């Protein structure tokens, strides 16, 4: 087989893995959009904040150390302990739940019935706030996140493909773990929303706020629930991305990458988020390999996803799996 085909196949596989990670972030968006009609720009920053909190708890950092030091002139940095990974993850998940409650109480409660653009802007405001808050709380230096996930090249795939094609595929173990986790997460979410009482209530709210209220579903509880779930999804995404490339500011930018994924898949569809993520992950890697790097000077990954989504939407404005938009005067 010619080299370029093998290489393209490897890139496609890696693109699929990257797509899974995009889909993880996009999932959080879809959950919140379906349940409350809010386009939550802060999802990426939630992931960053979750990862920062996880690292902070694990390493036993003193929260707000920098601020305290500036105010009192002392030098706090760390508590004399380290927390096991699993406990730290549970604690971080707890922090995300608390955060969801605070967001509902302080922000969302007061913005009921506002125009979608106002809610969108409010989430951008929250994103700014959380970004600053996370940095003040845990410091802004780049941190390494290690919760014991396997990393590095997968030897089995490498040797198997080498024996078959004479060319070893480079697939990161972490990406495989991420893919498995994503599948489990989607399965868990599906089971939760199909079979549990709260899950059904959640779907009812997503369907029709008024009708859900009239049968006695507490809208505010559902919002807290859905923001907690989105926070948890953000934590998972934060762990994956953080283990891959370190916990730093650029983590919050994956939210921007998740947007075209959403547009492609449709804002209201969970399968859409997954399929959209895979298409974009593979598409941008292949485009960069075949057209971007040889002819356009590279770095086309920055915009390819958006342009693809833009062109796609011109032909199908509601995305792949989105609900058909019906307008009446």
């Amino acid at each position, binding site marked *: 087989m010619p080299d370029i085909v093998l290489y393209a196949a490897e890139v496609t596989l890696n693109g699929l893995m990257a797509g899974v990670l995009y889909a993880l972030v996009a999932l959080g968006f879809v959950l919140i959009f379906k349940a409350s009609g809010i386009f939550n720009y802060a999802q990426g920053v939630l992931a960053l904040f979750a990862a920062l909190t996880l690292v902070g708890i694990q390493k036993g950092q003193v929260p707000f150390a920098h601020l305290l030091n500036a105010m009192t002139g002392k030098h706090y940095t760390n508590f004399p302990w380290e927390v096991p990974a699993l406990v730290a993850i549970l604690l971080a998940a707890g922090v995300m739940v608390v955060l969801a409650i605070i967001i509902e109480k302080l922000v969302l409660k007061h913005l009921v019935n506002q125009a979608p653009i106002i809610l969108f802007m409010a989430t951008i405001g929250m994103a700014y706030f959380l970004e600053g808050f996370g940095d*003040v709380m845990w410091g802004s230096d780049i941190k390494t996140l290690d919760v014991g996930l396997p990393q590095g090249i997968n030897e089995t795939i490498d040797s198997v493909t080498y024996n078959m094609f004479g060319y070893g595929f480079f697939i990161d173990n972490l990406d495989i773990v991420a893919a498995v986790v994503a599948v489990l997460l989607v399965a868990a979410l599906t089971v939760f929303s199909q079979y549990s009482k709260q899950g059904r209530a959640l779907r009812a709210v997503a369907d029709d706020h008024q009708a859900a209220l009239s049968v006695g579903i507490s809208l505010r509880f559902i919002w807290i629930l859905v923001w907690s779930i989105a926070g948890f999804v953000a934590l998972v995404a934060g762990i994956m991305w953080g283990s891959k490339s370190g916990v730093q500011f650029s983590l919050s930018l994956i939210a921007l990458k998740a947007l075209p994924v959403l547009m492609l898949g449709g804002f209201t569809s969970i399968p859409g988020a997954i399929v959209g993520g895979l298409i974009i992950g593979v598409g941008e890697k292949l485009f960069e390999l075949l057209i971007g790097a040889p002819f356009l000077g590279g770095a086309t990954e920055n915009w390819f996803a958006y342009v693809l989504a833009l062109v796609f939407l011109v032909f199908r*404005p509601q995305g792949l799996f989105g609900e058909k938009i019906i307008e009446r005067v």
Partner: protein
Amino acid sequence: MFYREAGDFKTSYREDSQTFPIKFDRLRYYVVLAIAFGVVPLLINDYWANAVAVPFLIYAIAAIGLNILVGYAGQVSLGTGGFMAVGAYAVYKLMTAFPEVSIFIHVLLAGGITAAVGVLFGLPSLRIKGFYLAVATLAAQFFLVWLFNKVPWFYNYSASGQINAPERTVFGVFVTGAQTSAMAKYMFCLVMLTIVALVARNLTRGTVGRKWMAIRDMDIAAEIIGVNPLTTKLSAFAVSSFFIGIAGALFFAVYLGAAEVGEAFGIQKSFLILFMVIIGGLGSIFGSFAGAAFLVLLPVFLKNVLVGTLGWPTDLAAHIELMIVGGLIVTFLIAEPHGLAQLWRVAKEKLRLWPFPH
């Protein structure tokens, strides 16, 4: 009592349709113009020009441009940074290619080029609406920034990939380059802003503006009563991008002097200007000024307090600034979703009655 609309009688149609039909508004407008053109230039120094006045004037132009698109025509755009970059690179290419032509014309031409690009990226708005459109305009943002980074022709093959504004004069006074005085920068931007604001104010009062608002309020209904969505939406994109292009050209040529596209015109700039429009008030020219002033002054104020007075390290201050800006935006949206312009309207209402509430 202090704000009166009554007793202002007109005797001709001409008087009735002037830009500010109420006498008090007109008077206030002349006073503001007199202070801006007559008093401020005499007092201004380098610090005030660079930290406050010039960014305010330029952001006000950009905010007016974006407000036309978002506030009047209802098409949410997150591509402002990209369009400003088009204005900046257009003016750079024009300045270096035709050095003998006045910079004033170059800036207007840069606006025109940006308008053309804006129309191109506005085409999808005929099919896509709401958030889908907002995200689609991100394509413009990322694609344009990438384009200016990767194609050396745009930055004249300079080794650093930066663009540097050559020295240009208006009436023999330097307005770009290192020798420019604070006053010249201020006056050049002020003249541009005055023109833009006047044009915008009159466009939005006229047929074009009413068509935009009809499309904003309900596009299908507007179409049924005979508003052509194609020309209306695209004209909104064109006018908006024209102003944003002028703002980008001034931002690069007058304010920065040297620019690197990713840094100066990144996604953050798009959000900043959208914030100005929202905090100022959607669909209000005054709101664009108020929003720009608020978001230019706030960081300067916070920096002075946190670093200057409390003596905290700058990185910590920057993070706290992010928190405060974010918190203020949320608070603002909760307290007054219609922005500073609405506060001003309420204040006028109060002044009309005060001190006799009945």
